[in-house]
């Protein structure tokens, strides 16, 4: 259920059950007569009860239903026909907490006789749906699921993802084959070992060896492929990695064991070779799964934030089109709350756009006909019409992606610790084995096959089993620990790079601050706030949403009318801009505002501003205490940056362009610092790429998250501290593990060189060192968390 924990939204817990909404569990206002907090929850409950699926509520484990939100994506464009009479749609679901949700969705859809197939995958949160009819029905089915309180997004199967799945399956198949072979060969080997005192005749032993060969060799050829391929590619590119000694060891052990078997001798290492492969495949599978799950969670978050664009047709109607199918010259209708899907110019309407994710500015920019706007900006004012001026390659986004690529080329030079060790370790091992062979053949005067056997036993005993497990096991334990703390580690070498960081660069908007407006003034009038929040609950406008967050336990005021660009009206109560509420003298303090006017009451002004993350000051303090330098780089105006920098107490630079930020980071690196960059905006992407290590909050835009080494979730900044500490600790443990593995080699290698190693000793030594390394790595799971992290989650 780790996947569910990631996307699980905090649900308000109620003390008295009769005061909670029967569907979503949100606390009901006092004296409420209804069982539900809003019409959405009531209709969700009605749908569920009408279908006779009321036991859903009892089956929920520890969560409640979710408050339904309006469906704003057009799914018709994402559905596709299968044959002539059936259509298919893949959806990504948010709000899936446990198997009860799966059961509810599947059962409900199965009640519809036109639905041929409805299946929810809880791990990937994907709903596959096939129905009799046309693609036009897509929104009806999607709407049904959305009405239950699940958020939906089109599920896009990214090519890279599909390839990842294939690779994971291949590993699993190899592991199964290796496991089968290892178990059976080991059975035979145990018989051989216990008969080594002479109770087993030579003929029987040879028979057992032949049987072992028959099982192990095909298995090695099949299950060794991931290693052989990687080793071959490394050698072809002119360097070595961990897979080179593994491949050479396994292949040589197989060949020499086969030779031993044909001449009827006792030293056959089939068991060691195949068990080694099995262990390594297991470690590799765990590693891939841990990272795959993190990547999946991120791509799910991204899919939910993306949507479709509404394009104005020649006849004045609007059609939905996917963002990647827009053309230059299309006219987009951008409603309040929508995110722009392409760069363009405003041709009609005036509004304010939130550009925080594009350039880091915290105050929305006013736009009017003629203004240039960019993909990723969010319309927080009135609806506008935008003529698309650039798509694909020529957008601001693509420009930033080019900067990112330039930054990443610098980072690609980083070589993982394990590979660094392998580069110096492999030649020594192979030289030792070669010298052993030459020594026994020329000085010891033994036949070539005896000498080769002893040399091979050197290779097997030094087989980097422990060495190859030393780092990956630590990484798996560290990644899964961070996953629980809300940090998704996305790149294989991220932890190692995080561990070496000595300088932290923070972005302001969305990183140190929450990046969305929060109510800062007007909340002292509790009555007014309750009325305003009730009205605001039916709007998706960011300011309205902020009001609702400030007063969550308020029932939705039914019958509220939204006047786009103005505000909301409920009877003769108005909530909106100063003009909409007929307020003449509005104080100009640069803050976003909403006015509430009621008959016979003084108008109330609510003000909003971006707020610091609650633990931002603590985080800076902790980072400094850990010996890190902290700095603030922002694209926002000087005043705003200075204010924040003064509160958290760090050095700062303001009004930086994306390239300027990246340059500052590159300068720091050139002066010998190892920089961790934390940012969320498009403008941060280039600097994230040019830093030594990078993190993004989960609210960041897609391009930025794709660059980051790790993504952290939630409203707290403390996961950054946790990530750095776990990374440092993991680095120490990985080095300890390498030391253990090398120490073991120092003891075992002389034994092997002098020919004392039998297959039994080799198998024992290998297992013991592997267990030791794994045990050491598991210590990472037990060390104390920073206290504040535990509290803020």
């Amino acid at each position: 259920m780790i996947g569910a924990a990631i996307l699980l939204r905090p649900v308000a817990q109620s003390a008295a059950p009769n005061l909670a909404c029967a569907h979503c569990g949100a606390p009901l206002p006092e004296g409420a007569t209804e069982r539900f907090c809003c019409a959405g929850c009531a209709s969700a409950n009605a749908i569920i009860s009408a279908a006779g699926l009321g036991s859903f509520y009892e089956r929920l484990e520890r969560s409640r239903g979710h408050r339904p939100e309006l469906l704003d994506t057009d799914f018709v464009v994402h559905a596709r026909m299968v044959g002539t009479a059936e259509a298919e749609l893949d959806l990504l679901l948010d709000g899936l907490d446990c198997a009860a949700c799966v059961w509810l969705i599947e059962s409900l859809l199965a009640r519809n006789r036109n639905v041929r197939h409805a299946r929810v995958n809880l791990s990937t949160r994907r709903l596959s749906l096939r129905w009799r009819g046309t693609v036009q029905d897509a929104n009806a089915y999607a709407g049904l699921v959305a009405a239950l309180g699940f958020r939906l997004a089109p599920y896009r199967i990214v090519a890279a993802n599909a390839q990842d799945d294939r690779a994971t399956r291949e590993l699993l198949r190899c592991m199964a084959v290796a496991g089968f072979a290892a178990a059976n060969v080991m059975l035979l080997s145990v018989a051989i070992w216990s008969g080594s005192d002479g109770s087993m005749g030579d003929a029987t032993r040879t028979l057992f060896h032949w049987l072992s060969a028959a099982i192990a060799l095909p298995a090695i050829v099949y299950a060794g492929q991931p290693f052989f391929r990687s080793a071959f590619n490394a050698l072809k590119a002119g360097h070595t990695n961990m897979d080179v000694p593994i491949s050479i060891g396994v292949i040589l052990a197989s060949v020499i064991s086969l030779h031993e078997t044909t001449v009827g001798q006792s030293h056959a290492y089939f068991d060691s070779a195949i068990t080694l492969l099995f262990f390594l495949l297991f470690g590799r599978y765990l590693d891939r799964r841990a990272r795959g799950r993190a990547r999946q969670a991120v791509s799910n978050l991204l899919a939910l934030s993306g949507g479709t664009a509404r394009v104005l047709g020649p006849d004045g109607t609007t059609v939905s089109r996917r963002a990647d199918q827009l053309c230059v010259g299309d006219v987009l209708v951008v409603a309040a709350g929508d995110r722009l899907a392409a760069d363009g110019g405003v041709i009609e309407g005036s509004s304010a756009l939130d550009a925080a994710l594009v350039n880091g500015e915290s105050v929305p920019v006013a736009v009017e006909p003629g203004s240039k706007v960019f993909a990723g900006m969010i319309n927080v004012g009135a609806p506008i019409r935008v003529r698309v001026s650039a798509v694909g390659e020529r957008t601001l986004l693509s420009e930033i992606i080019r900067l990112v690529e330039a930054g990443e080329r610098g980072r690609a030079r980083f070589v993982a610790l394990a590979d660094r060790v392998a580069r110096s370790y492999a030649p020594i091992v192979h030289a030792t084995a070669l010298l052993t062979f030459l020594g026994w053949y020329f000085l010891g005067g033994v036949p070539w096959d005896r000498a080769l056997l002893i040399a091979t036993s050197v290779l097997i005993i030094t087989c980097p089993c422990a060495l190859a497990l030393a780092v990956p096991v630590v990484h798996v334990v560290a990644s899964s620990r961070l996953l629980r703390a809300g940090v998704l580690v996305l790149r294989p070498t991220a932890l190692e790079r995080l561990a070496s960081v000595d300088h932290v660069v923070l972005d302001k908007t969305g990183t140190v601050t929450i990046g969305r407006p929060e109510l800062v003034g007007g909340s002292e009038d509790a009555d007014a706030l309750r009325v305003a929040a009730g009205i605001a609950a039916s709007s998706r406008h960011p300011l309205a949403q902020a009001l609702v967050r400030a007063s969550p336990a308020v029932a939705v005021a039914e019958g509220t009318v939204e006047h786009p660009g103005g505000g909301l009206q409920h009877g003769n109560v108005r909530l909106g801009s100063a003009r909409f509420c007929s307020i003449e003298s509005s104080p100009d303090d640069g803050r976003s505002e909403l006015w509430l006017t009621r008959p016979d009451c003084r108008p109330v002004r609510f003000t909003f501003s971006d707020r610091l993350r609650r633990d931002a000051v603590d985080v800076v303090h902790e980072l400094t205490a850990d010996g890190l330098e902290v700095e603030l780089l922002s694209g926002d105006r000087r005043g705003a940056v200075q204010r924040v920098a003064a509160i958290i107490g760090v050095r700062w630079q303001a009004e930086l362009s994306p390239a300027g930020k990246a340059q500052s980071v590159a300068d720091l690196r050139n002066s010998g610092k190892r920089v961790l960059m934390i940012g969320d905006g498009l403008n941060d992407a280039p600097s994230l790429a040019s830093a030594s290590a990078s993190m993004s909050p989960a609210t960041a835009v897609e391009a930025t998250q794709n660059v980051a080494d790790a993504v952290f979730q939630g409203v707290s900044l403390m996961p950054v501290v946790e990530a750095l500490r776990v990374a440092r600790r993991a680095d120490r443990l990985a080095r300890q593990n390498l030391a253990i593995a090398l120490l073991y080699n120092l003891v075992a290698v002389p034994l092997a060189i002098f020919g004392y190693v039998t297959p039994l000793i080799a198998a024992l030594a290998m297992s013991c060192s592997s267990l030791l390394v794994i045990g050491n790595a598991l210590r990472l799971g037990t060390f104390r968390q920073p206290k504040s992290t535990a509290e803020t989650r």
Partner: protein
Amino acid sequence: MDSLFVLIPAALALGLCGLAAFLWALRNGQFDDPDGSAGRILFDDE
């Protein structure tokens, strides 16, 4: 000794059956959703 000629093939055959079953399950997508499958069996199909 003679028993080996029966028991070893029998053991291998059983092992191969297990392997075949695993590979079949893998191909059939039974390892695609470990979280969901764990909970699904608890609910009646009804």
